[in-house]
C-alpha cells in the first residue's frame, strides 16, 4: 500500500474534525453571546406577531427548550393581561376541568401553542392561528340544534364572519348586541374625549421630575422648536430629560420619556413599535417590518422621538404624519383620500371642534379613561387582530354597533380606509333582536 494514501485520508479526517470543531465553536459562541445573531438556530420563520423578536430565543424559551410550561408562561407574560381585560371567552381554566379531558384530545386548549404554533408560518391561517378555522365545531357542534337561526351556517364561519371570536367577544355578546340595537350609523356628536395629561400635574412626584435638578451646561441653548410645545407649556426643565451639567446627555436614552410617561411607555413596549426594546434588542426599524414601508424610512429607529420629535413634541404630527412617513400600504395611503382625513383637516383649520377629526392615532391609539385620567393607548397593535377588537374602544366612539360590525367585516372597505359603505350586512344584531322578541317580554328579576 502506498505511504501517501493513508496520509491524505488522515488529512481529510483532520480537516473534517477541524471543520466540525470550528462549526461547534461558532454555534456555541452564538448561543452564549447575548449580542450574537441566533438565526442559525431558528427552525423556521416566525409569524408576523413575533418575527421582530425571533432572534431573542429566551423571550419565549427562557433558559430551556424542554418544558411546555415555560412556553406557556412566556405567552401569558406578554398576552395574559390583554386576555384578562378582554374577558377571554376561553380561558385556560375552562379546560383544566377533568370533565373536558376528552376535548383536550382534539385540541389541548390549556396551552396557547396548541392553536398558535410558531416557526411554522405555512400553517398560519391568520392572526397566528395554526388550526383549521372549523375548530369551533369540536365543542359547539350542537349549536345548530340549539339555535335554529344558526342552521345551515358553515363550520368555518363562526370566527370569520364578524360574529364570534375565540378570545375577545366584548362587542359581540348577545346582551351587548341588544343594548346597542337600532343605533344610527353615526352618533349625533361624534367627538373624542379630550386628553387631560395636565391633570397629572397635581402629582408632586411628577412635578419634581419635571422641574429637574441642577443646571444645564453653560453652552447649551434653547432648541429651535421649544417655544409653545407641550413640554414648554408644562414647564419641563432641560435637566429633566438631559440631566444637569455634570451628567448631561445630548441624546437621552429611548426610554427616558418613561420617567414621566410611564403608562404610555408601558403600552409602547407591548406593541410592535416597542417590543424589540422591551426585549432589550435594538429599536425596531421599518426595514424589519413585514408590511410595506417607504424605502427612505427603512433605517429610522423607532423610539418615542421618532413620532413625537425631539423637542417639538407635536401630537398632530405624531397622529398622522409620523405614521405615513413610514407606512406605505394601501390602507395607510388611502387614509389621505378618506372622509376621516377630511374631518381631521377641517379640525386643524379650526372649522370643527377639537376631537372631531379622525387620525391614524384616533383608531390605532385610542384614548382610554383610567379613573380621572384620559390617556392615549400607545400599544398600536392592541386592537389590530381580530379587527372586532376595535369595535368598542374605537369605532363606537362615533359609530353605531351594527355599522361598526359591518364595516370591520368588509376587508375591501378596511383596505380602502372606509371609503364607501360595507358590502355585506352581518346579521348579528338582527338575530339577537329576533331572539329577544321570542322571549315574549320575559325578564329576570335583575
Amino acid at each position, binding site marked *: 500500500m502506498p505511504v501517501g494514501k493513508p496520509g491524505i485520508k488522515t488529512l481529510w479526517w483532520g480537516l473534517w474534525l477541524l471543520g466540525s470543531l470550528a462549526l461547534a465553536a461558532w454555534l456555541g459562541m452564538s448561543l452564549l453571546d447575548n449580542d450574537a445573531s441566533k438565526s442559525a438556530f431558528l427552525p423556521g420563520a416566525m409569524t408576523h406577531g413575533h418575527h421582530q423578536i425571533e432572534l431573542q430565543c429566551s423571550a419565549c424559551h427562557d433558559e430551556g427548550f424542554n418544558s411546555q410550561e415555560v412556553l406557556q408562561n412566556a405567552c401569558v407574560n406578554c398576552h395574559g393581561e390583554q386576555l384578562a381585560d378582554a374577558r377571554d371567552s376561553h380561558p385556560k381554566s375552562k379546560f383544566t376541568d377533568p370533565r373536558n379531558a376528552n376535548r383536550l384530545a382534539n385540541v389541548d386548549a390549556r396551552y396557547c401553542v396548541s392553536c398558535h404554533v410558531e416557526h411554522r408560518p405555512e400553517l398560519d391561517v391568520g392572526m397566528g392561528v395554526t388550526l383549521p378555522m372549523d375548530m369551533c365545531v369540536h365543542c359547539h357542534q*350542537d349549536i345548530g340544534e340549539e339555535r335554529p337561526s344558526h342552521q345551515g351556517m358553515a363550520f368555518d364561519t363562526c370566527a370569520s364572519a364578524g360574529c364570534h371570536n375565540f378570545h375577545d367577544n366584548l362587542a359581540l355578546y348577545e346582551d351587548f348586541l341588544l343594548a346597542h340595537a337600532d343605533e344610527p350609523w353615526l352618533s349625533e356628536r361624534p367627538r373624542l374625549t379630550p386628553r387631560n395629561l395636565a391633570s397629572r400635574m397635581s402629582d408632586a412626584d411628577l412635578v419634581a421630575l419635571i422641574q429637574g435638578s441642577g443646571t444645564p451646561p453653560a453652552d447649551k441653548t434653547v432648541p429651535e422648536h421649544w417655544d409653545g410645545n407641550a413640554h414648554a407649556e408644562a414647564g419641563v426643565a432641560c435637566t429633566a430629560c438631559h440631566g444637569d451639567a455634570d451628567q448631561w446627555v445630548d441624546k437621552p436614552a429611548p426610554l427616558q420619556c418613561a420617567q414621566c410617561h410611564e403608562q404610555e411607555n408601558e403600552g409602547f413596549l407591548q406593541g410592535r413599535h416597542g417590543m424589540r426594546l422591551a426585549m432589550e434588542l435594538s429599536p425596531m426599524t421599518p426595514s424589519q417590518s413585514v408590511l410595506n414601508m417607504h424605502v427612505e424610512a427603512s433605517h429610522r429607529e423607532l423610539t418615542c422621538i421618532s413620532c413625537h420629535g425631539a423637542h417639538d413634541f407635536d401630537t398632530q404630527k405624531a397622529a398622522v404624519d409620523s405614521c405615513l412617513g413610514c407606512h406605505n400600504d394601501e390602507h395607510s395611503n388611502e387614509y389621505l383620500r378618506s372622509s376621516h382625513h377630511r374631518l381631521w383637516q377641517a379640525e386643524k383649520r379650526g372649522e370643527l371642534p377639537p376631537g372631531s377629526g379622525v387620525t391614524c392615532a384616533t383608531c390605532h391609539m385610542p384614548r382610554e379613561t383610567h379613573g380621572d385620567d384620559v390617556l392615549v393607548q400607545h400599544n398600536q397593535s392592541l386592537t389590530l387582530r381580530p379587527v372586532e377588537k376595535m369595535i368598542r374602544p374605537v369605532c363606537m366612539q362615533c359609530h353605531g354597533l351594527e355599522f361598526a360590525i359591518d364595516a370591520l367585516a368588509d376587508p375591501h372597505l378596511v383596505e380602502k380606509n372606509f371609503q364607501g359603505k360595507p358590502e355585506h350586512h352581518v346579521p348579528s344584531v338582527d338575530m339577537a333582536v329576533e331572539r329577544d322578541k321570542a322571549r315574549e317580554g320575559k325578564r329576570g328579576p*335583575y
Partner: protein
Amino acid sequence: MQYSRTLFATALATLLLSACGGGQESKPAVGIDPQVYTDSLFAVMNADRTNYTKMIIGRLGPAGADSIKPHEYWEDLENGAPLPAQMFRYGAEAVAEVSSDFSYSLQSLWPINSQNAPKTELEKEGLQYIVDNPGKNFYGTEALGDTTYYTAVYPDVAVAAPCAACHNNHKDSPKTDFELGDVMGGVVIRVPM
C-alpha cells in the same frame, strides 16, 4: 394523587419515627376519607355562596338597598355585581389556577349555558340522583382520560326567591317553573385518586 401523596407522607413519617427509635408504637397510615374531604369542601363552598347571596346580593341588590346591580354582564354596568352562580364559578376558576388536587363545577340538568350540562355518565347519574332524592348527596368514582377520580355531587338549592325567578325568566333556561327550595342543579367536586 392527593390520596397517594397523603399515604406516602404518612408512610415516610412512620419510617422516620421508627428509624429514630423513639420507642413509640407504630400507627397505621391514616389519610382523610375522600367523602369527608369533599363534604368539607362543599360545606365551605355552600356557606360562602349562601352568604354572598343573602348578605351581599340580598342586602345591597334590588331587593335591599338597591345600590348594586347583580347581572350576568356586571362588568359592563355601573355598580354591577356578579350573580351568585358566577361568583361560585370565579372561585372554581381561581382554584384551577393554583391547584390540580381537586376541581369543582356547577352543573344542571337544565343549564342556562349548555356547556354546563352533565357530560360524563357519572355526572348524569349523580345530577339525576340528587333531584330524585332531595337532601341526599351522590358519590362515585370514574375514569377520565388516564386518571381515576373520586366524584361527589351535591344538590344546589334555590336558597332565595331571585334564584328561581332569574332562572325561570332567563332566555336560555330550558326550565321555567323552579320554586324556592327546589334543586336547580348540582355542585360536582372531583378529587384525583
